[in-house]
Every structure is written in C-alpha cells, then in structure tokens.
C-alpha cells in the first residue's frame, strides 16, 4: 500500500476527533510512569516516555480475564465469554509490536484461543518508531526488534514537522480515511525516512556481546553455570519481572462463585514462573523449587525455548524487567556474563 505523510498538526486534530468518537488508548504520564490509558484528547498523550509501565500486550491478556460464565441450579449450562470492545491503541513502540506479533503467533496461529482473538480483532494498533533509545535499560537493537514489519495497522515515523505513515492492514487504511489532510509519500519522503533510519543506528549502540543467533546455544551450554546460583541468591522471587514483560503470558485458571451460589465464572489470571507454587503438584512436590532453577528457566524462556518453539524472539529488549527489578537483574548483563565466564561445574548442586 502507498505510504502517506501527515503533518503533525493534522494528526493532532484527527486524534482529538477520534478520541471523542471512539475508544482511543495512548501512553499518558502518571507521576514518574507512563501508562496506556483511554484518552479524550491528543493533549493527554505523553510526549517523551519510557516504555509504558505495563506493555500493551497485557491489555490482550488482562490480569483477570473471564473465560466462562455458568449456571448450575437446574442442570448445568456454560457459555464462553468474549471481550469485543473496539479500541485504537496509539503510540505502540516497535518492541511492543514484536511482542504482540509473538502473542499472535502463539494464541491465534497455534492455539486458536478465541478469547485472545476476540480482543485482538477489535484492536487497531498505531505504532510509532523509536529513533533514539529510551534509556540505558533498553536493548531492542541487540534483539533485532528496533525494526518492525509486523503486527501494526499503521506505523508512524517522526520526520520533524510531519509523520511518515506506513499502512499495515485494511483496518489501518480504513482508519486513515478520517484524516482530512494528508498526502501520498513521494521519493523525497522515502529518502528522509531512510536517512532517519540510518541515523538512529548511531544512537543505538549494541549491548549484547553475543551474536543473537548464538544466544540459544549459549544458554543451552550454560545450564551448569555458577551464575544461576549467584542470581538465585540475589533474586527475591517477587515476580515483578514477569508481570511487566510484554512476552510473559503464563496464567492460572480459577473459578469464582456468585453470591447466589448457583452461578459463577471461570477466569484466567496472571501467574509467574518465578513463584515457588508455579510447578507444584498434588503430592506437594515442586519441580522447580530452587530459586536458581526458576531464574534459569525465565532466561531460557526469553532467549531459547520460545524461539525454538515459535521461531520468534522470546525477549524483545524493552528493558522493563531490568527497570523494575529491585535487585537490578538485567537480561543483557546476564547474557553477557554467561558469555564472559562460562563457569563449568563438576557436579551439579542445587540451592534450597
């Protein structure tokens, strides 16, 4: 589809209009944090912001999502629940778009999960490219997620007085119909876009010391590294890292009964592999009880297991986990330390 160019003032007008008519969510400043929130005018959108406290992918997999409602007074009847609220998510960053592409591959292509699909089909994603790094914690360039070609309906790039707009889907094209004043991109615009892209690589310095394609092997070979013990001693198993991660999607399934005791609901709620009960079974046996094993599991999921199963990176380099970890555990540092000091042990010992 032909790219477009929109003057910033026109985009603002358009967003003001859109937010009055439809549900638009965008990054909004909230004290020191930024959050995706419903806006009613473009002025509410944060100008410069770190990745939002919670990634937009958590909107598609909310903390608590009702899967079924049922009655069991006269026989049983159960009905699946789907959220079909339409929403336009504005200002989604490339790392988060990559995370959404991963969730799409898992929940739609692989699992046909109607609950995820219903939400996803009703969300229009307007992405915005990053031209400079968010802070010292992000490492999207190293994870090859700075460039994005999937998931978005529209993708904006800041060209100074205007946005360069790429159209990713029919829904994106449809949305643009509401913009009064815009023009088709011409050769000069594309040149400016290319220059903006080239310039950003000067700003994003590679942080990962391993070639990305070697990361799965590095992790596989580091199963016995002493680093896991060091991290296991440090980690508090609070689960903050998994709560803020755009590619973490593990959940628990529970029932809740209504007050009348004749109806209720089954819902899924966030869970974390960093919590001890996560892998515990009926006999009380926990299959990943030692903390060093739990930490190792998380980093293997991020750098190896997801990639091996779904062919996409399990970590998009947003840096949220590092920004939120009370004891400063940072995935790039972990990967670099594994690379720097492949510590072998004669005998595997686990911490209890």
């Amino acid at each position: 589809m032909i790219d477009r160019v929109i003057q910033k003032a026109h985009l603002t007008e358009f967003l003001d209009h859109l937010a009055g008519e439809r549900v638009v969510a965008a990054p909004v400043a909230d004290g020191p944090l930024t959050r995706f929130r419903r806006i009613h005018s473009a002025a509410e959108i944060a100008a410069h912001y770190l990745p939002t406290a919670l990634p937009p992918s958590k909107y598609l997999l909310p903390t608590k999502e009702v899967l079924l409602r049922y009655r069991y007074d006269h026989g049983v009847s159960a009905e699946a629940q789907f959220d079909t609220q339409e929403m336009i998510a504005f200002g989604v960053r490339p790392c988060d778009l990559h995370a959404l592409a991963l969730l799409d591959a898992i929940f739609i292509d692989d699992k046909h999960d109607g609950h995820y699909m219903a939400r996803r089909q009703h969300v229009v994603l307007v992405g915005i490219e990053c031209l400079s790094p968010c802070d010292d914690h992000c490492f999207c360039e190293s994870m090859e997620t700075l460039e994005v070609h999937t998931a978005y309906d529209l993708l904006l790039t800041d060209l100074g007085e205007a946005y360069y707009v790429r159209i990713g889907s029919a829904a994106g094209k449809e949305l643009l119909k509401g913009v009064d004043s815009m023009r088709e991109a011409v050769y000069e615009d594309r040149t400016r876009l290319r220059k903006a892209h080239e310039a950003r690589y000067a700003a994003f310095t590679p942080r990962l010391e391993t070639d990305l394609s070697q990361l799965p092997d590095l992790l596989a070979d580091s199963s016995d590294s002493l680093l896991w013990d060091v991290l296991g001693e440090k980690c508090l198993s609070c689960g903050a890292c998994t709560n803020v991660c755009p590619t973490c999607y593990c959940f628990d399934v529970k029932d809740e009964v209504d007050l009348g005791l004749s109806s209720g609901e089954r819902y899924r709620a966030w869970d974390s592999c960093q919590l001890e009960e996560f892998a515990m079974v009926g006999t009380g046996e926990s299959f990943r009880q030692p903390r060093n094993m739990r930490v190792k599991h998380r980093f293997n999921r991020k750098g190896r297991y997801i990639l091996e199963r779904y062919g996409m990176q399990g970590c998009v380099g947003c840096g949220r986990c590092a920004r939120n970890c009370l004891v400063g555990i940072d995935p790039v540092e972990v990967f670099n330390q594994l690379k720097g000091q492949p510590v072998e042990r004669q005998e595997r010992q686990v911490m209890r």
Partner: protein
Amino acid sequence: MSGAPTLMHRRLKPSPFLPDLAEIVRKDHLTSTETLYQLRLADGSELGHTPGQFVELSVFGVGEAPLSISSSPTRGEAFEVCIRRVGDVTGSLERLGLGAQIGVRGPFGRGFPLDEMRGQDVLIIAGGLGIVPLRSLIVNLLDERGDFGDITVLYGTKDPSFLLFKDEITRWEARDDVDLRITVDLAEPSWKGSVGPVTTLFRRLTIDPKRTVPVMVGPPVMFKHVVKQVLACGIPEDRIILSLERRMKCGIGECGHCQINGVYVCQDGPVFTYAELKRLEEAML
C-alpha cells in the same frame, strides 16, 4: 517415538476452555481415598482417546483438574477416571452423586505408542496411582491380545490397602496370557505377596531386550530406579516409555505450568521416551 501430538479437541470450539458436559453414571469406592467414576458425555459421543491421554475435568463453582483416562477406548462410549482426594476439585467430586453434571475438556496430550508396541513384548511398571493410566493400556492390550507378545505387569503400592482395581487384578491373575506381579512397601504378616520396592519384581524376570517395550508410570523416585534397571537389561533409550505428572492449568500448551525445560508435558507428553527426556535437567530422571 513417532507422531505429532494428537488432536487437541474433538470439535473446534470458539473457546478452548469451554468444556463438554458429562454425567456421572457410576461411582465405585476403590480405597478410602480413591474413587472410580464412570462418565458419559451429554451428547452421547465417545471421548475418542488413546491410552495415556488425560482430560481436564471440572466441577462448576470449584475448578478444573487434569486427570488420566483410566478406561480403554476399546470399551464403548462411557469412560472412566480414578481420582484420589487431595484438594478442592478432587474433594468436591466426591460429594457429587450419580447423574450430576461435570465439565470435560480433552482428551489432551500424546498417549502411549500403541502401534509401536504391536508384535512386541510389553513390560508395564506401575507405582501407586500410576496404575490409573496404565489400566487403560492394559485393558486395551488384553482386548487386542493377539497383536502383542508377552505382557508383564509389575505393580507396586505403599501397602495392600492402597491396591487399586482389586477385582480386575484378580481376573488378570487368573489369565495365563499375562504375567502380573505385585509388591508392597510395607505389609502385615498376613500379606502373602512380595514386599519391597517395585524393582524387587525384576528378579527372576526374563526380558528380551530386543523385543521388549517397557512402559512405566509412577512417582519421580520410581523412575530413577526403574529406568536404571531396564537400561541395565540392554533396552535402548528410545524404547523406554514413561508418563510424567506436572502441574497443569490449561492442557493446551498455553499456561506454562507443565513445562520441563522447553517441553510442554500437556502437549508433547505426558508420555515420552527416555531418550527424549534424559537431557532435560528438569525432568528429574
């Protein structure tokens, strides 16, 4: 072991979490803590499982639990689960009467490689509740008896009061085309049988390593010892079959609970070959 994971759902549904309804048609108390339930799907259809697969069974208002299918697919449309009371779901099932409706999702997972056992000797090793999914296999083998070589069943429990399926076991013992041996960890002097861990039953057992498929289900500690034993017999690693238990919340490879390193027990298993698991640290073998 060949074959992709079996079909996830009998019918494609908008929600993979929407269960089918089933009715409790029979209830037999096997021990003080275990009950055998016979269930029939409300629409009268067959579950369509293979031995070794499991279902997610739900009591509305309480929750879901993964449970092995204990009946053989050769036995018609009703199916059976054998449940030990340990908590919310398993406890509340106990309180439901005949005719009560519960939810069933599945069958899930990869079952025992039945076709690869045809023409072979099958050595079944059950520890404790491991007999529950293995009963599905044993009955299937016996119903198609001519397709298999020697069938040997080694079954170990804590003490005689924990023995499950006593009536059936008596019938199997009476047959001369199956070699059944039982042992208990602890017993009163009145117990006539063998005492000791299930590995003690390997004594005086002739195993032809070239044509024997060992299949084991039991607690983690049992696997360690039994795997060692069958490897020592010279049986290749990719012919040793085991079924594992892990915490499960979805049954479809989404929720993450059942993972063993990069492997999902609910989808890739619960039945594996030893060769598939031996390099996985979290398999704890």
